[in-house]
């Protein structure tokens, strides 16, 4: 009954262009989540660890980064746990692949011929682990974009070398209408026809699992989320291949009763970073303090908050997003506040046209209307903001107006 650790999409060394100074922290968190995933594997005493692509965010990683990663993998191999890796679409197995440039098994101190740390490639597409009665198939291409489905014509029905048959793919399940194109694409029908007991998948950063025919498949998701809209990220999978009939154990796990046994997938959380995109209706805000107060209610040191102020903003609402970010920064991993609101000018007093203020308002209003008539929303919004600022400067005490 082999017990497998399934993880993918660690994206070590990833860039986080929209996280500013917090990007460094997020990279460290990704590294920490990977380390935690190894810890979980050791704790569960898994028989093998399957890393389904994109372990590295690119092939241009430094030796230091690779050595650090290998040191983590070595913790498994030192315990005799096999590590099987397939390249992905970021660390693609091209002629500059990390897996070609670095001899990972040797870096892990393994002797020649050892299969404790194996990179499955087009040249070496499978690994037979006799003592586990398990064979692992890596469906890998040497290009980022697959020339065909990795499961095209693939079937293990006649392979009698081992009882348990596990596949590894880094690619997308075709979902008609939703996912119709990607670098690597395969279908449920192909999964069902493969005859695999379990198909370990990578590429999608959110966890998902299911069955196709007698094959159980699962995306482990990224151990640490790397962007918003990755609610299912932050986890790894423990996959138990059990002899005899079995069934899904609990919620959050997928199970199947393939050939002679069953496959149980259990998801374990190792990531901590949360990404939250929060939209704030500008019309509901009285002032900047209220915005800070409301966003502060979401305070979480593990949260990357992307707050967007949208809707209609009254002209007396002055938001300095820099100030808001500074005020909230200590309470979050990272905060980014963007004002996308459209200025809604209050009716305000109708100013006599022979005054500067009156003429100003009339001129800018005319400009705004012209822009709106032309459909130039940017120019219209600029005119609104000019109008708002001008009215505040001219009709209020300008000393109370801040020009950040």
């Amino acid at each position, binding site marked *: 009954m082999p017990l497998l650790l399934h993880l993918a999409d660690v994206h070590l*060394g*990833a*860039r*986080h*262009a*929209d*996280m*500013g*100074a917090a*990007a*460094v922290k997020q*990279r460290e968190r990704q590294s920490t989540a990977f380390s935690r995933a190894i810890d979980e594997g050791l704790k569960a005493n898994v028989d093998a660890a399957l890393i389904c692509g994109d372990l590295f*965010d*690119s*092939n*241009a*990683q*430094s030796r*230091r*980064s690779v050595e650090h990663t290998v040191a983590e993998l070595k913790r498994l191999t030192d315990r005799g746990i096999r590590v099987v890796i397939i390249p992905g679409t970021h660390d693609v197995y*091209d*002629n*500059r*692949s990390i897996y*070609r*440039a670095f001899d990972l098994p040797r870096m892990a101190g393994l002797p020649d011929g050892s299969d404790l740390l194996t990179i499955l490639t087009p040249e070496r597409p499978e690994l037979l682990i006799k003592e586990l009665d398990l064979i692992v198939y890596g469906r890998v291409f040497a290009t980022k974009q697959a020339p065909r489905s990795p499961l095209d014509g693939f079937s293990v029905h006649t392979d009698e070398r081992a009882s348990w048959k596990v596949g590894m793919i880094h690619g997308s399940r075709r979902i008609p209408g939703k996912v119709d194109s990607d670098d690597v694409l395969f279908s449920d029908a192909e999964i069902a026809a493969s005859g695999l007991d379990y198909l370990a998948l990578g590429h999608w950063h959110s966890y998902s699992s299911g069955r196709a025919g007698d094959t159980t498949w699962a995306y482990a998701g990224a151990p640490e989320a790397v962007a918003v809209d990755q609610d299912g990220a932050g986890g790894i999978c423990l996959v138990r291949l059990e002899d005899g009939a079995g069934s899904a154990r609990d919620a959050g796990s997928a199970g199947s009763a393939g050939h002679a046994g069953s496959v149980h997938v259990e998801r374990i959380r190792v990531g901590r970073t949360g990404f939250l995109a929060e939209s704030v209706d500008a019309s509901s805000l009285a002032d900047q303090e209220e915005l800070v107060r409301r966003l502060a209610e979401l305070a979480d040191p593990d949260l990357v908050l992307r707050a967007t102020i949208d809707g209609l903003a009254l002209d007396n609402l002055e938001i300095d*997003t820099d100030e808001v970010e500074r005020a909230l920064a200590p309470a979050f991993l990272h905060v980014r506040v963007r004002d996308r609101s459209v200025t809604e000018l209050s*009716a*305000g*007093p*109708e*100013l*006599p046209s*022979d*005054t*500067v*203020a*009156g*003429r*100003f308002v*009339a*001129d*800018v209003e005319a*400009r705004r209307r012209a822009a709106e008539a032309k459909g130039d929303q940017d120019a219209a919004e*600029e*005119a609104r*903001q*000019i109008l708002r*600022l*001008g009215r505040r*400067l*001219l*009709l*209020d*005490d*300008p*000393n109370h*107006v801040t*020009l*950040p």
Partner: protein
Amino acid sequence: MRITRLRLSDFKTHASLDIKPAAGLTVIRGPNEAGKSSIAQAIELALFCKADAEREDVRQAWAWGASEPPEVRIEFDFEGQAGTLVKRFGGARSEGELTIDGRAGTDGALIAEKLADITGIPSEAFFRATAKVGHSELDRVGGDEPELHDRLQQAVSGADRGTATAKKMLEAAVRRYRTEGPKNPGLLKVVREEIAMLEGELANGEAALARLGSDRAQWVTAHERREELEVQLRRQQADLAEAQRAEALAMRRDRAAEQYERLKRAASLVEEGERLRGHMPTAIPLVQLRSAASHARGLDFEISELEAEVSIVDATADDGGELPTAPPRPLRWLALAAVFVALGALASFLLGATGLLGGIVMLALAVCVVVCLAQAVRLAGRRRQYGLAMRLAESASMQRADVDRAQQEQFRRARRELESTLAGIGVDDVEAAEALLASTEKQTEALAYIEGELHGLGIKETNLRRLVEARDEAASETERASHALVALGSRADDPASILASVQRLLAQTLPARDAARSEEDQAQGRVDSNQVDAEMVAGLAERLSAARERQVELDRRVLVYQGTLAAIESAERATLKTAARFLEERMGPMIARLTDGRYDDIQVDERNLAFRVRAPETAEFVDVRQLSQGTADQLFLAARLGLVRLVTMDRRPPLILDDSFVTFDTTRGERAVRLVKQFAAEQGFQVLYLTCSDRFDKLADELVVLPGPSNERVLALPRQAPAKPATAERGAATTAVAKTVAAGASRPDAPAPTLRFAPDPRPNPDPVAPRRDTDGAAAKPARSAEAAKPARSAESVPASPRPARVPPRPAVAPEANEPDPLESLRRAAEAATEAERDTGIADPFGLRRGSRDEVSD
């Protein structure tokens, strides 16, 4: 709009105040802290502030200890319609109500809109910029022309503080963003430079990463190529080793075969030698045999010789008679020669020696002579030999006997020795000995040949058995090598050519492998020397992204700032142009009147509303400061207040002057107040003048005197929700008492205003007010009959039509308790004021002569 009654309840210091301003000039006098400014503030808040506004100044309007919120009630007249405005500023208990002509409304927005329409003033800021003249606004009129211009500009700005502050702030902000200087670079430059720096660093980093990728790819290619060549090389080296082995085996086989052949021959030779040795003719060593045979042969020869000698001696003895019997005779030949000579002499005689015949005879005879002589000589020799032979023969005969005896002895010895020698070698005669020697020598020669051949074969071993063993071993070795070669398969067919072929391949593979290794090493060197860190480059990209985002934000901000600044400046230019033309048109007649016709043309700079008048002497425009102080004051005041009509679209809101002339000396101040009063009367404005001085009492159409703050009031604080009196007058102790006096009555001796403003004759002086209600379009603002009068004199026109309700001088006059620094000046200037009484300005703005629409830009 004209305020007919103002009532304040619990508004700051005013627990209850009730005043009824005149239609013209109402002077509200009170000492410091009497609440004069509070009255101005109350009017301002009532007119322009929502009752429920959450503002600090509104909160501060609460009277100390009051339980009820401050309330302002204004009764007014608007174009003949009576109206009431009530504002109670109490947070949740706020109330606002506007009633006009019996129709009431409580909606704050509607009230504000209606009031803006009534007053022509849309906001507090606008109010402060126009209808309210602060106590320091006119300080420097005539002294600081730029400030004067600023004040006028402020009046047309519609803004509380004019546009200057706003523009300065915007300019400062734009400068803060746009400055390009190296020492204090603007925000845009900073972020631009940061972006440029990051772009440069990122480009370098990306290039380094690209190089790293490329070098790694080259390394991988070279590495894989080298490994492939290494495999190929190992295979070729294995082939080479096999070929070499095959070649060695072949050599071994050949050597073994050769050895076999050699040993085989050697064995044969040794066997033949042994056979020869076994069949030798004699056992006597060849040398000894050869010596014996030779000795025997010598003996045999000696015997033969001896035998021959005996024969010769015998023969010699037999041959003794062969000696000539007579000795030779040479003389005969000599005699013959002499004959011939004689014959010759005879012949010569006979024949002559000189003839041919004689010659021939002589020659023949000579030859005969010579021959005879030669024969004679030869025979002489023989004659000597004959004698010797004769002597020898005699000696030999004697010796022969001796020789015969010695020879006999030698012969016998030789025969014995010969026999002994032949017996020694086992033969009977010399011939047998010779035959034995010959056969022995032949066998020995054969053996020597064999030994020579063996030597030539290099075989030293002479033991036939061992030779046979060695030969057999060589045969086995040959077999073994042959079998090994057969096991090598085709490589054994032609190991040499295979070896050559493999060596050729190796010669190609080795350099290729070395080249790949070199390329691999070089690529590895480049990879190792490339210190780029992908995460560091990622950091640069992230910083660049943030900086670009910031740049977009800064660009947006500065765009808004610049747009706002440009729009304000544009609006200002247009507005000032209108105002300048407006002032030029209306102030021309006024300046003529103010200067008794000396100046009749005025030019207003449309950039800043600066005045210039045309000097009659030079017909050129000169600075307005060349006019007298009083004229300058009047000009500015007229312009300042006149602009109110312009910018309020002739709504004529009540003007509030908060001790605007407090710093003026008495003469100047009174002149200014007279101008204001005249302006108010002529233009239909209501003016509330708040002052702490009583020097304007006499000019007031209505005078309100406020008591100063009393100790009792202070001691009474905080009040315990005192019951509010039903009337406004609750007592001086806790309530400000409004006291109105007729200015003329209070100061009967005071000079009456001398400036005469012509009343506006227009039935509706509001042609530029499109928002005016149509039903009220024909209505004129209510004015007092007194204000409408075209002219009045100090003697005939009282300041107020209403009877005095309080003494003209309050019992507790604030001036009595506080010094009035201008009082002495006032008195001294009164004489000068008198001189100006008759200098009137009928219609400084000529508003009654035409509508606003007639103003040409």
